[in-house]
């Protein structure tokens, strides 16, 4: 049984003041296995972000089911779904979206804020993931005092601190220069090599080539799936990464 099962999911948005729905996803089905690194590619407006937010348990599909680790996610109440996100998911946003008024370790501890853990335990976990992403010595710095790459790593650390079975990333290198983007992708690859399941939305074929599998979406429909070898060949993967 797949760790993540997307079953015939459709999503239609209703424009304000209009009764006519705009379909964004059409009957999307796919599976993600435990420890798999899957990328989603597609042009703008194809439904990538919608599918990501549905996988992120925060955007109720109009039709279909999302089952993660045997849990029918959208059968849960809003509050239980929040708990599910806290327990199962780690998010890496495109622009990192770190809290500028919290220092690095406080940003990492954010997902733990509402959990009934001792302060010392929260700190220990946060330091551990900061070390993992190479920011152990910058725990007290504000995000504005970190470079773009360091901010990206900090965002990854925040996504990992609750030890989530599934990490969702929305174009994590989209705003970074190539070198910094490569640095971030290396961390994702390393995480995946240690068994972390990752689902990433990207425009960057080079990033997608690092995944086990690439899903291609167009006009709300999954068009085809390619494996890494195929992608590498097609997209002329940069072997220096």
């Amino acid at each position: 049984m797949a760790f993540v099962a997307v079953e015939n999911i459709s999503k239609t948005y209703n424009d304000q003041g209009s009764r006519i729905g705009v379909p964004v996803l059409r009957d999307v089905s796919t599976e993600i296995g435990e420890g798999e690194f899957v990328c989603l590619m597609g042009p703008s407006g194809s439904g990538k972000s919608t599918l990501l937010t549905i996988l992120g348990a925060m955007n109720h599909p109009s039709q279909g089911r999302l089952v993660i680790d045997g849990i029918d996610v959208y059968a849960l109440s809003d509050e239980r779904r929040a708990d599910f996100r806290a327990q199962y998911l780690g998010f890496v946003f495109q622009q990192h979206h770190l809290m500028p008024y919290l220092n690095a370790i406080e940003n990492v501890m954010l997902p733990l804020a509402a959990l009934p853990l001792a302060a010392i335990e929260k700190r220990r976990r946060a330091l551990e993931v900061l070390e993992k992403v190479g920011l152990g010595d910058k725990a007290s710095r504000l995000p504005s005092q970190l470079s773009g790459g360091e901010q990206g790593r900090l965002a990854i650390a925040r996504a990992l601190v609750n030890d989530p079975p599934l990490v969702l990333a929305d174009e994590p290198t989209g705003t970074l220069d190539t070198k910094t983007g490569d640095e971030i992708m290396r961390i994702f690859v390393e995480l995946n090599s240690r068994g972390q399941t990752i689902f990433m939305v990207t425009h960057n074929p080079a990033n997608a080539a690092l995944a086990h599998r690439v899903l291609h979406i167009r006009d709300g429909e999954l068009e085809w799936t390619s494996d890494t070898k195929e992608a590498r060949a097609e997209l002329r993967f940069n072997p220096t990464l």
Partner: protein
Amino acid sequence: MRISTIAFANLRRRKGKAFFLVSGIGIGIGTAVALLSLSVSLREEIGSQMDQFGANIVVTPHSDSLALDYGGVSVAGVSFDQHQLSNDDAAGIRRIPYRKRLSVVAPKLLGTVDVDGRRTLVAGVDFASELRLKKWWRLAGRAPESASDVLLGYDVARAASAIEPFPGTSADADKSSAHHSAASEEFRITKERVTIGSREHRIAGVIGQTGGPEDRMVFAQLSQVQDLLGRPGQLSVIEVSALCKDCPVEDIVTQIRKELPHANVSAIQQSVRARAEAVDRLSRFSLVVSAVVLAIGALMVFTTMMSAVVERTKEIGVLRAIGFRRTHIIKGLMIEVVIISAAGGIVGWLAGLLASRLALPYFTEAGAQIELRVSLAVFAIAIAMLTGIVSSVYPVIRASRLDPSEAVRYV
């Protein structure tokens, strides 16, 4: 890291906005505190001024006989009552549970005697009590000291040729003057002694013209008049002043009735009502103004919180995405609101107290003070918090209901 850590960090980050909110709530609470403090002080001053208007409770004996009139109050006939009042009754009034609320108990015995050959109404009084009760009396001379000292009413003094006007002044002039010393400027006492009944008494002073029954009366020591009238220990009327702040006059009347079942006890409703109305109007005015200012403050909190929610849509979306419940969002925002409101309450209380102290001299006469009341501080902070919380409920709930997927679209 707790939800409160995020709230505190947000407050530190948005110092300007926090300061603006604290100031807004502070102004609202400050206005309310200043008005309430002034109103309380004015109530006390009005109460104390009204106290000076005299008795508000009159105790008379049960009687079917025709009454003598004294100060607009029916006083039972002195000779034909079945149940006379006595000195013990005056002592009894001082034993009621609300005795501490009684400012003056003034017993009197009324009768008629010859004063320098003229039949005159004489009142035996306890001068210490009487002079405290009749603060509007303008005395020429001095207050009686010895048992044989008497005070003459203005008309009696004139009839007995005990006074003469100062040269160039008219004794009838300026009747409305409220100055205590004015009387001594209008006339002077020319006689030292007067014969009351068969005894000579020293004229301690003359009461300036009041236009009331006092003008036609002689006031002597109670025990002297009791001897003179042959009615030892007896009283005709007991006047009681219980008009102090927050005095439950009706309850005091009930207690005196219980203590003196054989007496008529009545409150002078007019005085009580006048005071109550004056105080109530003042209180209502303060409450209305305070409510308006607080409503403006609440509106300000509401709009600021609404804009804060819009401003923080992305942040709230991120928090929701990483697993914060709606209740966590509400808790975080409410912690900020409570801290800001409490700070506004403290600032407002201090500002209101200062403002009322500065403003008080313009509203009252010298002597009135603003007391430092802990209850007012607690009230101010509680109202500030209530205002902050109530006006933030909608924005905070709206924030908690932000669709995280919509919020992270900004991402």
